[in-house]
């Protein structure tokens, strides 16, 4: 039972506390390049999910047989294989979106988050934890992609998943779907994340302080 709880924690940590985008600032290229609409962001998130979970599974299953000296190259080849699978599947299933994402599907290989998880986690833990960790991390990545994609699509086009939101009078902020909008939105989201974490830390400090005072008061009275 206890192991189940830790496996669950491995998954949860990627979603918020160690979020690959907001906290570790990894995987920026696909993050910014494809998030000009919510649907692109979701497809990219799913593709990354498949690649990360698949390669974490393989790497942690074969970790005894991977020689230390060539491990990075092997990881990259495993990742590249999964990316090729995703690339061809998307081409077959969703040709329109595949065309829009274009070169950025193959570029999942160069997403440092994926290689980072293999090196830092999957190569050291057993299959169950590695897969849970991969699910959590790619979930966190997906949340970030989705947040960025939604903000940019709502402000830049005035629509959400292609559904018009504001009617004809809305003047879209075209800059948001262009490259500068990606940088600015991610910068502001990071700022918000920092602010939120800071507020939470201050709040917890205050609670701890209040508890300390309360305990000290009890000691004095008793």
């Amino acid at each position, binding site marked *: 039972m206890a192991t189940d709880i830790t496996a669950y924690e491995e998954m949860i940590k990627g979603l918020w506390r160690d979020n690959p985008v907001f906290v570790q600032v990894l995987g*920026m290229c696909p993050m910014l390049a494809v998030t000009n609409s919510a649907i692109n962001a979701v497809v990219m998130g799913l593709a990354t999910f498949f690649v990360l979970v698949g390669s974490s599974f393989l790497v942690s299953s074969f970790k005894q047989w991977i020689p230390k000296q060539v491990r990075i190259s092997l990881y990259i080849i495993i990742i590249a294989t999964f990316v090729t699978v995703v690339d061809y599947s998307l081409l077959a299933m969703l040709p329109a979106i595949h065309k829009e994402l274009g070169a950025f599907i193959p570029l999942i290989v160069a997403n440092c988050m994926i290689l980072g998880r293999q090196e830092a986690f999957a190569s050291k833990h057993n299959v169950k934890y590695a897969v849970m960790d991969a699910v959590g991390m790619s979930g966190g990545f997906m949340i970030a992609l989705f947040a960025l994609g939604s903000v940019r699509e709502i402000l830049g086009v005035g629509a959400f998943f292609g559904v018009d939101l504001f009617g004809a009078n809305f003047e879209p902020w075209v800059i948001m779907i262009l490259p500068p909008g990606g940088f600015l939105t991610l910068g502001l989201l990071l700022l918000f994340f920092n602010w939120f974490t800071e507020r939470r830390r201050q709040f917890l400090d205050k609670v701890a302080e209040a508890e300390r005072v309360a305990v000290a008061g009890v000691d004095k009275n008793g």
Partner: protein
Amino acid sequence: MDDLLWIFISTLLVNNFVLAYFLGLCPFLGVSGQLETSFRLGLATTFVLVITALCAWVLNTYVLIYAPYLRLISFIVVIASTVQFIEMSIKKLSPSLFKSLGIFLPLITTNCAILGLAIFATNRGYGLVEGLTFALGAGAGFTLAMVLMAGIREETEINDVPALIRGTAFNLIIAGILSMAFMGFAGLFSST
């Protein structure tokens, strides 16, 4: 000749790899603290990009016509090992050059700009000369963006920026403004 010039200028300014395609963001945000280092990193990256273009052309012309599905894997393996090999030869032949490029070379191989260049060049069907020009333009554009960013960051180092925004958020907002400035070049060619 006009075509080559067009490829070079458009990759350098209009379709800048960093500011318009978001390629090579890790070093752009991570290593751009100092002007001197950024410039050298830019040069080293240009060097690797040119080699990549060469490798990609060889692979595309002689190998991948028989097995297109191996494109991604072979690009990564061949480029990484070629760069490693060149790194070793430079170390042997010219220690001073190795000292100035050396530490960056292995890092650059995992930079997405490298793989991005190979894929873009393939998708657009560039030949050898066009590919090399494309690589030079991309490298020059990367260096330009790095140097601009490092200059701005060195200046803002002494400014009074709120502690909360310092770090990546601040760099991203600077990058956004830089990218906006680069969009001004979009009118340079009527066909873009």
